[in-house]
């Protein structure tokens, strides 16, 4: 395989979420692609079900899934047993995709506002009218040279939509997926020049986990969790988790060390110090591959004794010492981290501190360690096909508070599968901003449901779900071989009679199944193409495709030279494609080379951070607002269950299991405050307050309280709001948790704080006060 190491600049350019836009080659290849037969039977008729392989798009993991259709109806979604990443596994969210498609409350027609903004009065319009309004607005902005007044808020990446925005001369874009990992990617870029590295977790023997929860929520969720479980149970790996609360991963770790929120950095540095002091560091690696000497490192780590880390974090110095020695000696080892440490105002530094542990132990490009993302030839062709947005135009805005500050006027705000009025920190301010017709004169929302943001919109467009459209994406190749995933429509299957009447009918394809999104919902790709056609000029030249399937077919045909001889057909049948030319890359190629420090190195001293007047070396910064002494002040942390995703807010099966989020509080502290389990409390932060029920638990650090994200919707649908109602679906009249309510939305009280170094959100930094509500005050 031709593997090219890609430059940092190019990596930035490759755009999209990095996972969607990159491919890597790990040093190890797990099980080779299997070729299991895919079958299922109908429970009622015992007939075989139609099985269509496609790709799940509910998180960046890109699991291969099989949709099973009984007649025209989607009845089951299971993992694709041949897919190298998830190997047949699937998560609850993936199965709940059935609810997303078959939801009787889906938004299926375009609407325009009829009354005052947010009043909830709508007039149904045709797509033609919606297209003319939008294309008129965009053309006007283009002609008057004020494209910068077009704000795009996208919750999901779509290659055609990105092409459209790039051709438009791309306006201001809020890229929610990139924002989520901003601190993480800034930290990784500053050290290794790639936005993230891949862990070869299946071969690790010691895994230190700082605030990640791969057993519930992770960028490679199922693929990663599966490999971690295998490593732990079948190969005897040790998994140690540092987290403020006992996550699913902590529950399934060999040990859980609760620590004060946001102090992971100093724990990692203290461990690094122990490793260096005891002479256990990989001095060869430090010498050859990093820009720092052992003595410099010694000096850097001097202030971080295990004792000082104990004072700051609460983790015993003896534990730090023991785990550090284990990490350095029980190899291969790897330190992983997640949102628990990066969603802080010191998140970028935290991530750099934990990464330092990996460099000191030399865990780079080694089996069971970390690997660089790599490109294969095929992926490069795909990228030429869909030029990503220029780096300068990506990610310039970190959400609505940023937008509010810039004072550049807004003409049109277009939100696609993004719901800032609900999901942004301090969402009440966001709502006020979006409601203000002077600030946002024209608000367009494209979504599958009537979200909180859609309620404020002037124009609502029905988006099709990921199971109703076409797409091509690169899956994270966890086994080392680049993978190309195809997403193809699996609903709604049209009957032959209906297909014959359709204007797109093609005699040659009479026997092939033909699909159409439900109602009048439209794929964003097709919407972009239609808009480009209507606006004309350069836009229509840059997007010369008939529709999304034509676009995918053209992308594939350009690949034919690199191994996909059968082209689209093989992808349609298997759902994914692995580069047959790629072979196992030897790990030693990285370590054996006589390359000097100039070519390949880990930059522990970062000039890019120095330019931002941040410390160029990995340091620990205390979060000032967390230095409270009042025992009634807590650091609010949030977490996301695997039942929560962009598409599962209104899923009946997911909400049946998770419909209530109680405030986690340490049993001991609750007792001191006179709060009992299930008591109602008022939780107050500097930006607002909410009422929540209490869960007293021994699974949380006494300085923290925790709330699950994704609940407490005031819109989206009756299921999301926990209301029983009659519909064509029998189950909606069986909703049994109406009395319990639908939880609270923590974003109402979370402050919009940012890490000054990485720029990412400090979502888990808000300090809240808790006040018990007496019986009379309960609702």
């Amino acid at each position, binding site marked *: 395989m031709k593997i090219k190491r890609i430059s940092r600049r190019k990596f930035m350019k490759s755009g999209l979420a990095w996972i969607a836009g990159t491919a890597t080659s790990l040093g190890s290849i797990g099980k080779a692609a299997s070729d299991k037969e895919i079958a299922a039977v109908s*429970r009622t008729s*015992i007939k075989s079900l139609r099985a269509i392989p496609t790709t799940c798009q509910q998180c960046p993991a890109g699991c291969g899934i099989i949709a099973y259709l009984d007649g025209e109806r989607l009845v089951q979604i299971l993992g694709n047993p041949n897919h190298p990443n998830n190997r*047949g596994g699937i998560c609850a969210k993936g199965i709940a995709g059935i609810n997303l498609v078959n939801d009787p409350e889906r938004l299926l027609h375009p609407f325009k506002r009829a009354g005052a903004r947010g009043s909830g009065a709508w007039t149904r319009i045709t797509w033609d009218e919606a297209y003319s309004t939008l294309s008129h607005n965009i053309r006007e902005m283009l002609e008057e040279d004020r494209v910068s007044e077009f704000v795009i808020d996208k919750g999901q990446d779509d290659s055609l939509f990105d092409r459209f925005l790039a051709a438009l001369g791309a306006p201001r874009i809020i890229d929610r997926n990139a924002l989520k990992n901003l601190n993480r990617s800034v930290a990784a870029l500053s050290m290794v020049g790639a936005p993230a590295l891949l862990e070869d977790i299946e071969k690790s023997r010691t895994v230190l986990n700082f605030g990640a929860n791969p057993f519930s929520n992770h960028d490679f969720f199922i693929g990663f969790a599966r490999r971690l479980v295998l490593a732990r149970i079948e190969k005897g790996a040790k998994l140690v988790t540092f987290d403020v609360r006992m996550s699913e991963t902590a529950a*399934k770790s060999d040990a859980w060390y609760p620590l004060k929120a946001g102090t992971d950095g100093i724990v990692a540095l203290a461990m690094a110090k122990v490793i260096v002091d005891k002479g256990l560091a990989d001095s060869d690696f430090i010498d050859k591959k990093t820009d720092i000497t052992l003595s410099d490192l010694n000096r850097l780590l001097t202030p971080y004794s295990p004792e000082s880390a104990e004072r700051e974090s609460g983790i015993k110095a003896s534990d730090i010492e023991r785990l550090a020695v284990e990490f350095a000696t029980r190899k291969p080892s790897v330190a992983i981290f997640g949102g628990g440490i990066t969603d802080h105002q010191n998140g970028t530094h935290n991530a750099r501190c934990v990464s330092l542990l990996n460099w000191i132990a030399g865990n780079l490009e080694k089996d069971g360690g970390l690997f660089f993302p790599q490109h294969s030839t095929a992926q490069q062709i795909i990228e030429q096909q869909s030029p990503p947005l220029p780096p300068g135009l990506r990610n310039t805005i970190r959400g609505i508070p940023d937008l509010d500050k810039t004072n550049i006027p807004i003409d049109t705000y277009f939100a696609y599968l993004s719901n800032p009025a609900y999901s942004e920190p301090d969402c009440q301010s966001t709502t006020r901003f979006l409601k203000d017709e002077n600030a946002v004169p024209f608000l367009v929302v494209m979504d599958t449901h009537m979200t909180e943001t859609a309620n404020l919109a002037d124009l609502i467009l029905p988006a099709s779900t990921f199971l109703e459209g076409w797409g091509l994406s690169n899956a994270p190749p966890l086994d080392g071989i680049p993978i190309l995933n195809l997403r193809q429509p699996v609903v709604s299957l049209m009957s032959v009679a209906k297909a014959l009447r359709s204007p797109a009918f093609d005699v040659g394809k009479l026997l092939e199944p033909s699909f159409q999104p439900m109602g009048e919902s439209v794929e964003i790709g097709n919407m972009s193409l239609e808009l480009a056609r209507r606006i004309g000029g350069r836009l229509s030249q840059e997007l010369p495709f008939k529709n999304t399937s034509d676009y995918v077919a053209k992308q594939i045909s350009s690949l034919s030279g690199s191994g996909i001889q059968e082209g689209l057909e093989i992808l349609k049948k298997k759902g994914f494609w692995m580069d047959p030319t790629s072979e196992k890359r030897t790990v030693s190629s990285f370590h054996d080379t006589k390359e000097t420090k100039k070519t390949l190195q880990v930059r522990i001293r970062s000039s890019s951070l120095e330019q931002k007047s941040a410390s160029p070396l990995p340091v620990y910064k205390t979060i000032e607002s967390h230095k409270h002494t009042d025992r009634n002040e807590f650091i609010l942390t949030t977490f996301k269950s695997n039942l929560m995703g962009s598409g599962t807010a209104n899923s009946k*099966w997911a909400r049946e299991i998770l419909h209530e989020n109680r405030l986690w509080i340490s049993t001991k502290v609750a007792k001191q405050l006179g709060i009992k389990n299930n008591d109602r409390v008022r939780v107050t932060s500097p930006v607002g307050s909410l009422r929540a029920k209490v869960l007293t638990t021994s699974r949380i650090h006494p300085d923290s309280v925790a709330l699950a994200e994704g609940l407490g919707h005031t819109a989206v649908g009756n299921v999301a709001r926990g209301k029983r109602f009659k519909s064509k679906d029998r189950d909606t009249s069986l909703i049994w948790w109406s009395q319990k309510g639908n939880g609270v939305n923590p974003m109402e009280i979370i402050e919009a704080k940012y890490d000054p170094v990485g720029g990412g959100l400090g979502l888990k930094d808000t300090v809240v006060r808790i006040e018990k509500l007496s019986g009379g005050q309960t609702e």
Partner: protein
Amino acid sequence: MKAQNKRLAVLFDLRKCIGCNTCALACKSENDVPLGVWRNWVKRVEKGRYPHSREFFLPILCNNCEDPICVTVCPVNAGIKRPDGIVYIDPHRCIGCRYCMASCPYGVRYIHPIKKIAEKCYWCHHRVDAGLEPACVEACPTGAILFGDLNDPESEISRAVAENAVQVIKPESGTDPQTFYIGLDIESVEAKQTEDK
């Protein structure tokens, strides 16, 4: 494949269970189980004092017992045990009298809210008869659930049972359950479910 030579069983490797509820949702969709009732679920149990607390995940489904008391008590012979070990309910015979529910030591049966007859997990026998695994087994992301024939010494489940210490829930009930667990925490069987979120 002669059905009478088989002894089907399920094995949960609890060391691998990550409590993700995928099995519960796979069953809901496979068997069109209405809201409010479940054929399988994951029980979460919190134990211990901070900071030495633990959380256990315990997936539960019908044990398809070797000596099913629910079949014995049924007044209309609606409960049927197949030669391969699967216990199921004939929906045309069931009169919804709930005797079987009262007798089941595991509480895995429910009355269908619309059909008003007893239902439970029967290891997706429609899939098993077609040579497939139950939906929850196929869906499990970490491979924590094994399904197969204990009479076949070469089957994956036979080997796992032979190599590991396995437990069953409430062996004292005398029904000889055929759902086995590796790493079962006996206390969490009886413990109260921790309402988690």
